[in-house]
């Protein structure tokens, strides 16, 4: 029954035409979030916060109250929104440049405070919107427009593993990494997103779902090749898994 219903457009999505590139996985993840919001019946109490980056226009696609944050500051903005209306569901949708470079302080401290918000973190190992520069998550040796000879970790530093980092904070309740490359991984990602929102509803603290995503345009690969690249190259550096699941979240399952 649920599968059949899944083919209808979720109420939490609008009819807006997408601006995302062909083969980009943002669309899949938007859809998963919207399905979860519908299933939990929280559309009318949920407020989203869009980042700076490819998802800057996410508010056009979600049929929800939405704010657009300054680059990296979404977790701070979410904190303000949530603290003055704790009965609402507040989530940020952030890419790797936004969350893991310019906004590192904001995400670490929101997690550390146990801010009762949810973050959906899109890791595609590159800056998409500005045209393919090195991200904090760019893999060693990966060629980008600002690492034309491949990322040399001696010069450009090492990629940051966000889920592992956030899992060390005491305020985090639920921190996992997933990918959206084929039906099985997509279903697993959806379950994680749902649990993250449920954790917030149960007031258990900070939740983050990191999702390995593809960027065919800036990687210079076809959509299918890009999904293979996620599985072959990204998932080995960024292992999928549950990095922190507190007991109260486990009992939500």
């Amino acid at each position, binding site marked *: 029954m649920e599968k059949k219903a899944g083919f209808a457009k979720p109420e939490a999505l609008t009819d807006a035409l997408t601006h995302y590139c062909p083969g980009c996985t943002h669309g899949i993840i938007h859809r998963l979030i919207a399905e979860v919001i519908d299933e939990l019946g929280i*559309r*009318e*109490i*949920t*407020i989203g*916060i*869009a980042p700076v980056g490819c998802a*800057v*226009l996410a*508010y056009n696609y*979600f*049929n*929800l*109250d*939405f*704010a*657009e*944050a*300054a680059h990296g*500051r979404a977790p*701070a*903005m*979410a*904190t*303000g*929104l*949530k*603290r*003055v*209306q704790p009965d*609402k569901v507040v989530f940020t949708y952030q890419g790797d440049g936004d969350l893991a470079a310019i906004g590192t*302080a*904001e995400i670490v*401290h929101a997690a550390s405070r146990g801010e009762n918000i949810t973050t959906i973190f899109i890791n595609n190992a590159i800056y998409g919107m500005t045209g393919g520069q090195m991200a904090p998550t760019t893999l060693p040796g990966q060629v980008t427009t600002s690492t034309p000879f491949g990322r040399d970790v001696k010069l450009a530093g090492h990629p940051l593993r966000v889920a592992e980092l956030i899992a060390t904070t005491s305020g985090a309740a639920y921190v996992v990494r997933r990918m959206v490359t084929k039906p099985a991984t997509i279903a697993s990602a959806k379950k994680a997103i749902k649990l993250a929102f449920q954790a917030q509803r149960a007031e258990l603290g900070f939740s983050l779902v990191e999702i390995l995503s593809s960027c065919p345009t800036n990687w210079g690969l076809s959509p299918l090749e890009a999904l293979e690249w996620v599985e072959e190259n990204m998932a080995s550096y960024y292992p999928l898994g549950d990095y922190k699941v507190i007991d109260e979240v486990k009992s939500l399952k």
Partner: protein
Amino acid sequence: MAKILMKGNEAIAEAAIRAGCEAYFGYPITPQTELLEYMSRRMVELGRVFLQAESELSAINMVYGAACAGARVMTSTSSPGFSLMQEGISYIVCSEVPAVVINVMRGGPGLGNIQPSQGDYFQMTKGGGHGDYNVIVLAPATLQEAIDLTILAFDLADKYRSVATIIADGMIGQIMEPVELPEIEPPKRPEQPWALTGAKGREKNIITSLYLGGPNLEKVNLRLQETLEEIKANEVRYAEYMLEGAEIVVVAYGTAGRIAQTVVQEAREEGIPAGLFRPITMFPFPYDRLDEVAKSVEHLLVFELNAGQMLEDVRLATRDRLPIHFYGKMGGVVPSPAEVLAQIKKIASPQQGER
């Protein structure tokens, strides 16, 4: 109502609480830290939101978030922290949500020092962050005025859906004075159909400062400028002291304005026809009134705790039609009334010689 003795930073904090401030986000920095400390106790006692942020960047973006929800919200900081908040203030102004920011200025540039200064005048009155905008800037010269202007700041922020600031300095923040705290009814705030409260029974609300495509942003720019014109038309405030028969008028604000009042009084006692024009709103600046005042006087003496920032607005107001003298002290140095009086005497002496 009985007067009580309060420290400036605490008086501003209590005024904000009485104005119905629902949420405060801040970061410790001298000389405004007592404001944050006061809020950390009182806001929690009252069941309101207090949060010490990890930086001024985060504090202003927490303010932005709470403002988007329609809460009465404020932050406070001092000069280096105010610099860090410029990004957020620019976003808040473009998003047209109300917020209050207190800047208890200290010496700069750089880390500077923690002494009183008015070095942030340009930053506060001319925009401060990126893009075309101004914020409302209120300059208290006494603690009573700091209280009254803080309460006013919340109402102005609401009325114009913009950022209202208090331009205070370390002196206002740190001194103690007897003050009267008004009992205020719960604030009557404008409706907020734009607030992000969940799209229940209505279309979704979006709060953004992104307007792709030239004409789209231009429309917002023009609306913001219209609001600024309204603010200029409605909100100009200033104080005048001993202007009758004055030939030398000191133009000063905040702590400098307070010192200048003593100086003018002393000058008068010595037979020098001095007066004081003290702008209270630094934005909107009282250009027209100052121009009018300047028509019947011989000299203006601009006195600031900086290298001459408001000086430019005084020259703009008067188009340099009369001699404009400047006396300024930087580095957190606050001159005594005698030092400022000496400046007035320097201007007055040829005239006195004629008499």
